[in-house]
């Protein structure tokens, strides 16, 4: 880093001078070009982010000031009406609930697959399995949507009946409305499958990076394979798994086509997860954008701003969780 001596200079007779300036540029053309390029890229990124945020905020402000209902609590979406009334309560609920269902299902399975690939499977099996999981990520989301609507929805009805019969007491699994399984629960399952590959592959990479000596420390104490994983692998991989989950959550929150294809949208909030209906931000935008008038589009953009903020909050929370345990993370070992 501090090597500022040009290669062709004579060897220093004393100790090499310590670089006192922050800049390590030698003033040569290559350094200048690279500095300009990297600085430019950084500025460009900030400019793009700022313009997106500015655009969202500006159009949202127009929409929200025209809204005759309460933008946060109204259970309706009618920006073309007179007076225009619309609110994001249902969308926020549907987005959060479907993503939470997806996380609850996907993260444990993904961690399990990642552990199997990284620590249990024989090498001959691990590589193809990892490949197949990655392949799941290559399927376009509209295909997931069609598969969900044509295959998952009818086949989940049996599961729905079973859940309703034995777990209706949980309230969540009580089915009070008839209708096919175009519900938030089905959307959650579909989203779980869609975020499985990203969560799995990031977790797997983290688990593979656990230093050999950390695992041997546990082994030499007489730990079984599962105990090695509990004492060495999972603590080391913890923050990585959180990051992986957040990447998956980001995808689940913003998923559009698959949700729009499966869900039968309605503007109600119900904790009966098996009932058809509900909506998510992205699904609502996709479903209504084409037919919306000027105010309708601004209203949809305003809902997009809320999704943007939600994603920011989720990422911020993830960083907090990771930072709080930094002292104990494997990174300083």
């Amino acid at each position, binding site marked *: 880093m501090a090597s500022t001596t040009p290669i062709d200079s004579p060897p220093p007779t004393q100790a090499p001078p310590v670089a006192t300036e922050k800049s390590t540029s030698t003033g040569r053309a290559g350094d200048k070009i690279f500095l300009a390029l990297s600085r430019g890229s950084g500025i460009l990124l900030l400019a793009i982010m700022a313009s997106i945020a500015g655009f969202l905020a500006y159009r949202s402000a127009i929409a929200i000031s025209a809204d005759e209902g309460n933008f946060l609590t109204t259970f309706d979406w009618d920006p073309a009406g007179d007076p225009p009334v619309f609110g994001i309560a249902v969308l926020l609920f549907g987005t959060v609930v479907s993503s939470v269902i997806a996380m609850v299902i996907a993260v444990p399975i993904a961690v399990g697959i990642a552990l199997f690939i990284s620590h249990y499977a024989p*090498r001959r099996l691990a590589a193809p399995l990892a490949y197949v999981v990655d392949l799941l990520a290559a399927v376009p989301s509209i295909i997931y949507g069609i598969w969900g609507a044509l295959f998952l929805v009818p086949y989940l009805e049996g599961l729905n009946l079973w859940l309703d019969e034995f777990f209706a007491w949980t309230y969540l699994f009580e089915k009070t409305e008839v209708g096919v399984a175009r519900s938030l629960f089905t959307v959650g399952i579909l989203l779980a499958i869609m975020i499985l590959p990203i969560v799995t592959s990031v977790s797997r990479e983290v688990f593979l990076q656990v*230093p050999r*000596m*950390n695992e*041997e*420390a*546990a*082994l*030499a*104490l*007489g*730990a*079984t394979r599962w*105990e090695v994983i509990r*004492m*060495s692998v999972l*603590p*080391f991989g*913890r923050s990585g798994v959180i990051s992986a989950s957040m990447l998956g959550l980001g995808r689940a929150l913003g998923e559009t086509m698959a949700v729009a294809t499966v869900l039968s949208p309605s503007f109600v909030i119900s904790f009966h997860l098996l009932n058809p209906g509900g909506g998510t931000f992205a699904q609502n935008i996709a479903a209504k954008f084409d037919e919306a008038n000027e105010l309708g589009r601004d209203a949809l953009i305003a809902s997009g701003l809320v999704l943007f903020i939600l994603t920011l909050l989720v990422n911020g929370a993830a960083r907090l969780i990771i930072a709080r*345990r930094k*002292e*104990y*993370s*494997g990174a*300083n*070992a």
Partner: protein
Amino acid sequence: MAKRIDVSGLTAYYSAHKAIEDISMTVEPRSVTAFIGPSGCGKSTFLRTLNRMHEVTPGGRVEGKVMLDDENLYGSNVDPVAVRRTVGMVFQRPNPFPTMSIFDNVAAGLRLNGSYKKNQLADVVEKSLRGANLWNEVKDRLNKPGSGLSGGQQQRLCIARAIAVEPEVLLMDEPCSALDPISTLAIEDLIGELKERFTIVIVTHNMQQAARVSDRTAFFNLAAVGQPGRLIEIDETERIFANPSVQATEDYISGRFG
């Protein structure tokens, strides 16, 4: 506590490569036995066969017998996990569990065994840390992470962790090679104390260290690169360094090769 190790006809492989061949020796209880020899001669591999850690390496395979008193560690119904609970190990680089506090590091082995009472745990942790000459340095910060200690302290923490489960044997794989001279001295003093209670086997690259800490010394060598390592001789440390019976040992000790 402190059992005799009796190895006979031990050969270890990495896949098809034979790393050590036909090693037989006896390690006396409550003594320190040092393994010396040039790099690649298989002394670390041999050490790892003594607690069945060798087979953890992919392709690792062992033939032969290791008797711990009357029990063959490679018997058909012996659980390697149980072996490692009786034969503890300290590694070349200090490897405390980075996510655990100092206390939890020492308690880790006990918690694995599952048979302890809560108040008992604190006693064992204190006793082990005292045993590793670390108690006075860490008693005020037992809940801080072990990875915040200096290298020498971390290595003593690892020793405390290993002796907390009261093993029969303590294996040390170049425990001082990553440490400064002061920390090395602390560990060497500690080895002198620990041999009152444990059977200790130490691999070292440092011949002065072998001469300082061990009662008996084993010299390993290999005929050529790619050839399996062999035990050349094992004897009282004083004899090995003053008057070895094999020429190769004398050549190595006097610095003529290796």
